[in-house]
């Protein structure tokens, strides 16, 4: 129950503290050498960096992120279904199966549409 979550809180503090402490130790013990312009520049295999570091990237990555949100929600809806499925079928019958099948089918149509339209393709 709720008190089970207190160790999680404790662990957040310990893990955060560990990450902070290691960085601090490295700052304190690591030797600092002189800086110069070349050392400060971005790494580009020994060449002088050309253009901006953060170029715009392909819209495909963005489509993937968007589709991920949509299908992630679908998966989330299936978790409560999965945990009661066995017992529910034993008592109330298979209604829960058809309900979920309908839900999944609608999303499968969405998935098939995205595939058909090439939203899942990476070559073009």
């Amino acid at each position, binding site marked *: 129950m*709720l*008190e*089970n*979550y*207190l*160790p*999680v809180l*404790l*662990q*957040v503090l*310990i*893990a955060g503290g*560990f*990450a902070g402490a*290691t*960085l601090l*130790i*490295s700052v304190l*013990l*690591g030797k*600092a050498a002189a*800086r110069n312009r070349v*050392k*400060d*520049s*971005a*790494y*580009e*295999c020994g060449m002088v*960096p050309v*253009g901006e*570091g*953060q*170029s715009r*990237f392909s819209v495909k*990555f963005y489509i*993937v*992120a968007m*589709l*991920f949100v949509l*299908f*992630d929600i679908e998966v*989330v809806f*299936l*978790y409560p279904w*999965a*945990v*009661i*499925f*066995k*017992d529910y*079928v*034993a008592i109330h019958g298979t209604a829960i*199966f058809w309900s979920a*099948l309908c839900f*999944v089918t609608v999303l499968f149509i969405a*998935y098939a549409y995205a595939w058909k339209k090439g939203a*899942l*393709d*990476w070559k073009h």
Partner: protein
Amino acid sequence: MDALFASIDLFFLAISAVKIVLLVFAVILPMVAYSVYAERRFSAIIQDRVGPNRTGIPLTLFGFKKDIQILGIGGLLQPMADGLKFILKEDFTPGHVNKFYYWLAPCLTMVPALLTCAVMPFGSELDLNWFGIAQPIKSVIADLNVGPLYMFAISSLGVYGIVLAGWSSNSKYPFLGGVRSSSQMISYEISLGLSIIPVLMIFGELNLSKMSAYQDANGWLLVPLWGDSAPWSNGWHFGRWLLWIPVCISFVIFTISMFAETNRTPFDLAECETELVAGYHTEYSSMKFALFFLGEYAAMIIGSGLAVTLFLGGWSIPFAPLLSKLTGLQFHFVPGATPLYTGLLHIATFFAKVFGCILFFIWVRWTLPRFRFDQLMALGWKVFFELALVNVILTAGILIWCPLK
């Protein structure tokens, strides 16, 4: 919440703190260090090399003739030397980066990886009656009823570290690596989430400790050979073994997705040297780089732990009920009445299984070539997503056709 504060006993918190410190600093971090070492030695064997075999107790510094190699295996102190070197290296922040996020990103990779181990049941119960503790101590930091979901939720926060590392470095290779890696991770999160649904349906439970206890008594999901799953027991019927098919599909999808989630070869496109130098951590050095490294290996260990808990019986000893019957000792878990030696054996079993999984990770890394990015995305979105969805329906069908119990 008032009731909560009244009910907090400091003893519980102290025990939790001890468990966290022991698990994180005495088990996970050394395991990370030694899986790096194991990786180097193992890859050396695969490639017919020697690997790091010289680091020992450096007695030559004090005028002796030879260094001492611990246990006769050369290089067992290599992880310590590596760690020391990480700490002593120049802590360099390049001039062109966004300083705040450049420092934040390694922490955001490391912290979620360490947080996910909170719900991992690494053993059954420890009976500490000898030490004056009446209640047996559960070998899990936080026994939550949303175990796997908590793990997915926290590990999905790990994406931030990678995105921010790529973005804040303000340099081309890290940026491309960060974007690639994060979209790879989110793509495989879906098949990862879907692949455990058949498992949840079979257990009817989201609590990882209860799943392990069930598998201890009734056979592992992948090895249903004792308890109710055994063909000679009264509880057995055809459905139990029919379920083995969707479980196997789940296991394959889960394992491969886990490789992709942890950015391991054959899916390490975020840091493929030939294209992107080192991916999102190209601009990182010293301890900040080490935190990425630790975070990645910790995620691998936790992922193996989850696979072991869901499919391979968690901490349970194979054939435990039969072994108990044969030997007269107690190898299986009985709530509240598990002797101390069994509790310790369970912990050892769990970490042995996890170590086996890590060796498998390493083996795969040095055997398979790397995927292309479009192949990787196609595999995740076009193959695994469908397969996992069909697998869920298949499991539902089997459970309706021949119900368990």
